[in-house]
C-alpha cells in the first residue's frame, strides 16, 4: 500500500481554514495520521488561545448602549423644518416693513411730529416778535407812551421827573 506523505505547513493551514477544500487523499491522510492531526490541532489551539486571551482582556463592565436618540431624533426632526420656519418668519417681517400700510403709518407719525414742532416754532417766533416790538412791560408802556418805550442811554429814567440825577459809577466801586 502506498503511503501518503505528511502534510506540509501550508496544507496544515489550508486544512485549518477549510478542511473540505483539501483533496480527498490529503483529507483522508489528515484523519488517519496522528502527526499531521497533532500539528493542525496545535495550531488551532494556539489560535483559539489567542482569541480567548483577546476576549478576556475586554472589560466586563461598560456603559450599555441605549436608544437615547428619542430626544436627539426629536430635535433633528424639528430642525428639519427650521429652514421653512425661518423663511416664513423672514417673509412676514419683510411684508410688515414693505406693505403700504406700514409706510403710511410711518408717514402719519412723522408728519404729526413735524406739525407739532412747526407749531411750537411759530408760537416761539411770535413771542420773540412781540418782545422785539414791546421790550418794556405794559406798566412802563402806559407811563412813557408807546413812542418812548425803546430803552436809550439818553432817555431819563423814572426819577427824572423828581430832579434825581443819575449818580456816576465810581471806578472799582464794585470791587471795593
Amino acid at each position: 500500500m502506498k503511503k501518503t506523505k505528511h502534510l506540509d505547513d501550508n496544507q496544515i493551514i489550508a486544512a485549518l481554514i477549510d478542511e473540505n477544500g483539501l483533496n480527498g487523499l490529503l483529507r483522508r491522510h489528515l484523519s488517519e495520521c496522528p502527526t499531521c492531526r497533532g500539528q493542525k490541532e496545535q495550531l488551532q489551539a494556539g489560535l483559539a488561545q489567542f482569541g480567548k486571551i483577546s476576549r478576556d482582556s475586554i472589560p466586563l463592565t461598560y456603559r450599555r448602549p441605549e436608544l437615547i436618540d428619542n430626544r436627539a431624533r426629536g430635535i433633528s426632526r424639528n430642525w428639519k423644518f427650521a429652514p421653512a420656519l425661518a423663511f416664513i418668519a423672514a417673509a412676514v417681517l419683510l411684508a410688515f416693513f414693505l406693505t403700504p400700510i406700514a409706510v403710511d403709518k410711518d408717514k402719519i407719525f412723522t408728519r404729526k411730529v413735524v406739525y407739532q414742532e412747526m407749531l411750537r416754532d411759530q408760537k416761539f417766533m411770535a413771542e420773540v416778535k412781540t418782545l422785539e416790538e414791546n421790550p418794556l412791560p405794559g406798566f412802563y408802556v402806559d407811563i412813557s407812551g408807546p413812542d418812548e418805550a425803546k430803552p436809550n442811554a439818553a432817555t431819563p429814567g423814572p426819577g427824572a421827573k423828581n430832579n434825581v440825577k443819575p449818580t456816576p459809577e465810581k471806578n472799582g466801586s464794585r470791587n471795593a
Partner: protein
Amino acid sequence: MNLTEDLELKVSPGSEQLSTLVEKAREGDRDAFEKLITLHQDEIFRLVFFRTRSRIDSEDLTQDIFLSAFKYLPQLKDSDRFRPWLYRIALNRVNDFHRKNRFLAYLGITESREEADVADTEPHHDPGALDTMIRKEFWVHVKRLSKRFSSMEKEVFFLRFVDDLNLREIAQTLHKSESAVKTHLYRAIRKFKEDTTLSDFLKGEWQDEKDKTS
C-alpha cells in the same frame, strides 16, 4: 439568568427569531431593536475595544454604532445579514475613529494612540498582578503581530479568531468573496505561525490553562 443569556437561549444569531426581530425593528419597533442591542452589545463592544483599547472611546463608539444601525436599518434588504451588516457599521466607525485620531495627532491636538495604549491596557476586571503582566505582554505581542499584517489580513484574522465570525460572515462584512477571505486568512495564519515569540507565549498560557482545568 440575565437578560442577555435569556435572549440568547430564545434567539440564537442566525435563527428565524432573529430575522423576525430584525423585521420588527426595521418597521420601527423599538422594543425589538432593544432586544437586538441586548443580543449584540457585548460582541460589538469587544470588537471596538480590541481595536481602540480605550474603554471610554469604545463605549461612545458602541453607542454610536447602534444609533447608526437603528437609523439605517430600513435600508437593510436581507434581514438574515443583520450581523455582518452590524459588524460592517462597527468596522467603519472604528476606521473613522482611527482616521480622525491620526489627523488630530498630526495636528498635535491629541496624543497618538501609541502613547494612549499603555494606560488602557490596565486591568479592567480586577485580575492579579501576574494576570495583568500577562495581559500587558499579550498586547505587546498583538501590536507586533498587527504590524506584520496587511490591513485586510488584520481584519480577516481578528474577525475570525477574536470576533468569532465564520468565513461567510467575514465575506459579507468585508464585501469580499469567500475565496478572497480564505487567501487573506491563509497569509495571516502563516505570519502568526512564524511569530515564534507569540507562539511560545501562547503555548505557555495554554499549558497553564490545561494545568488549571486538569
